[in-house]
């Protein structure tokens, strides 16, 4: 099932022609309308006219989150503000706010791309979609909302918070598709269990999850607990919001909407392209954005491009689920480790589910990491004895498999802060 079959299944050669056309016109526009890019190109002695092939993009400078912040609030807009019909800001999990804008055409394009993601995940106009994302400056809520309306589904803008009430709505309104972060889906699953509601009393069929990294184990857990097909989708405010890529029901990686985004994967240290299929940092150039075009944005998200074609027939390249962020990459006593690796291990041991947080301190020039795991979500008998055992198992396996020495502490349920809708995975107290 496709939303825009002629575009999602475009022949590779035609796609690359379209990408080049759109790359060149985007460059001509940013050069003419955004002083930041013009200055940057001029200082490197590059003119948009030199870009004659998609691979030439490597000659252009990167844009970073710091650039976006330095141009706060409107410095990177390519159209006058009166042409902007919507303003969002990035959720700010990692620092100050980045402001992004959309023209009327941008909103239309965005809705269509989210509609592609929803359709690929199973949603049709007959579905009732409950959106448990914040409806504020964060792009998640409105992005998914407009896409679901575009599909023609019945949309419930449930927003975040009050899990018991969310479940009541889910039950009474006969929600068939849940849209949220994966961790919130876990929370819903656990609360359903606690409330003694049977999943068969619900009408859920599909779950579309994004806005944070999650693991295959967590997917299994959510699918089993809620009886749904759970797909992953990806996006970030600086390039669009949700709708950059999404999984189809094959669940084997996220189809990138390459007719609207040109993607590269680079080594975060050397900034050179990684060999095909290797893991690296995702870099995105927008090809159709009017208000807020982005040239070579360093997403800080780590992924890799998957080589073979997907049986679903879509021709866009696929990316693996985001395994972590470059700025999340932790060096604990010299060992590189991603929170997602720690998460996978915890989930393997605990069978998915539990929330966790990694706290790092530096004591006398030595890094000390503590992994906090919410234990009450681990349904079990003889909790106290198990607590000690579990913590020990996690500690041993982290040492054995990831080569890091950490302390593991089990903490009470919901003690890890989720004020943003998603918990902060890493608290780094080191003064480096």
């Amino acid at each position: 099932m496709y939303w825009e079959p002629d575009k999602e299944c475009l022949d590779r050669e035609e796609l690359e022609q379209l990408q080049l056309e759109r790359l060149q016109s985007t460059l001509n526009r940013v050069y003419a309308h955004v002083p930041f890019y013009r200055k940057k190109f001029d200082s490197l002695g590059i003119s948009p006219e030199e870009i004659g092939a998609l691979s030439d993009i490597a000659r252009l400078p990167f844009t970073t989150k710091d650039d976006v912040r330095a141009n706060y609030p409107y410095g990177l807009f390519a159209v006058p503000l009166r042409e902007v019909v919507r303003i969002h800001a990035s959720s700010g999990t990692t620092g100050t706010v980045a402001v992004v804008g959309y023209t009327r055409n941008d909103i239309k394009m965005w809705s269509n791309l989210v509609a592609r993601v929803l359709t690929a995940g199973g949603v049709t106009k007959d579905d009732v979609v409950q959106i448990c994302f914040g409806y504020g400056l964060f792009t998640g809520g409105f992005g998914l909302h407009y896409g679901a309306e575009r599909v023609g589904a019945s949309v419930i803008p449930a927003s975040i918070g009050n899990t018991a009430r969310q479940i009541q709505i889910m039950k009474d309104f006969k929600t068939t598709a849940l849209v949220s972060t994966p961790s919130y889906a876990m929370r819903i699953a656990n609360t359903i269990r606690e409330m003694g509601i049977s999943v068969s009393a619900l009408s859920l069929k599909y779950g579309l999850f994004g806005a944070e990294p999650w693991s295959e184990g967590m997917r299994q857990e959510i699918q089993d607990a809620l009886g749904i097909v759970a797909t992953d989708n990806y996006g970030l405010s600086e390039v669009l919001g949700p709708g950059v890529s999404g999984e189809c029901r094959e669940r084997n990686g996220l189809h990138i909407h390459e007719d609207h985004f040109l993607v590269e994967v680079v080594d975060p240290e050397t900034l050179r392209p990684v060999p095909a299929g290797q893991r690296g940092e995702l870099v995105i150039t927008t090809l159709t954005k009017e208000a807020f075009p982005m040239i070579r944005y360093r997403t800080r998200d780590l992924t890799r491009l998957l080589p073979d074609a997907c049986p679903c027939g879509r021709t866009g390249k696929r990316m693996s689920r985001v395994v972590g962020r470059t700025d999340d990459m932790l060096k604990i006593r010299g060992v590189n480790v991603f929170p997602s690796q720690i998460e996978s291990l915890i989930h393997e041991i605990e069978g998915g589910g539990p929330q966790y947080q990694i706290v790092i301190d530096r004591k006398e020039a030595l890094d000390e990491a503590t992994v906090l795991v919410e234990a009450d979500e681990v349904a079990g008998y003889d909790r106290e004895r198990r607590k000690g055992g579990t913590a020990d198992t996690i500690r041993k396996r982290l040492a054995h498999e990831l080569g890091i020495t950490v302390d593991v502490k089990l903490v009470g349920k919901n003690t890890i802060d989720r004020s943003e809708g998603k918990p902060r995975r890493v608290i780094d107290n080191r003064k480096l």
Partner: protein
Amino acid sequence: MLRIKNLESGYGRLKVLKKVTMHIGAGEIVTIIGANGAGKTSLLRTVSGLIPARSGEILFDMRDVGKLPPEKIVFLGCSLVPEGRQLFAPMTVKENILLGAYPQYRRKRGDQVRADLERVYGLFPRLRERERQLAGTLSGGEQQMLAIARALMARPKLIMMDEPSMGLAPLIIKDIFSIVKRLRGEGSTVLLVEQNAKAALGIADRGYVLETGRIIMEGTAEDLLSNREVQRAYLGRDLDAEESM
């Protein structure tokens, strides 16, 4: 059908087109809009082989036509309805039309010419009425019809039109554009260059905006029509005045 990559051309030392990349799919009406001097006519003349491409690639039907002379390009199925019609004024309407059939004779398809003549007369009944009249005596709208009819006689797969609405009254423009739409309905592919952006976007599937030899925008006709920059620069709408009313 037509795929252009990084096309550059110009006159003498003047570079008019700067890395133009665009395409037209079979059965589409694509329009190129832009101000006077943006390079619209140069683009069509370069594709037609009337001025040489300095660099870049022109693929017509997957074949590289960048270095071919104009008559070969017409022979392959790509015809131009030039700016200002370029009719042979002292010849009759019918003679002008038949001149367009020259490639058909070269293709040894002379036997089809009679049927083709009937077809264009079907499209433009006015031309049948005036077939013996000298082309120079026709009205502007009739001359434009004649120029299109002449191009159609070569049975082009792609028909390129340069400012067909120029100098015509609004009612006649409507007629001409409805013919363009009808041609697409009959399987032709159309590349339409226009200063009358509103009329062109009204019938086109997609469009490109050309500004000082560069493509600055690409999109569906619908998206371009709702783009405020296009509205202000090419559709002659004074948005601020409209909003303050």
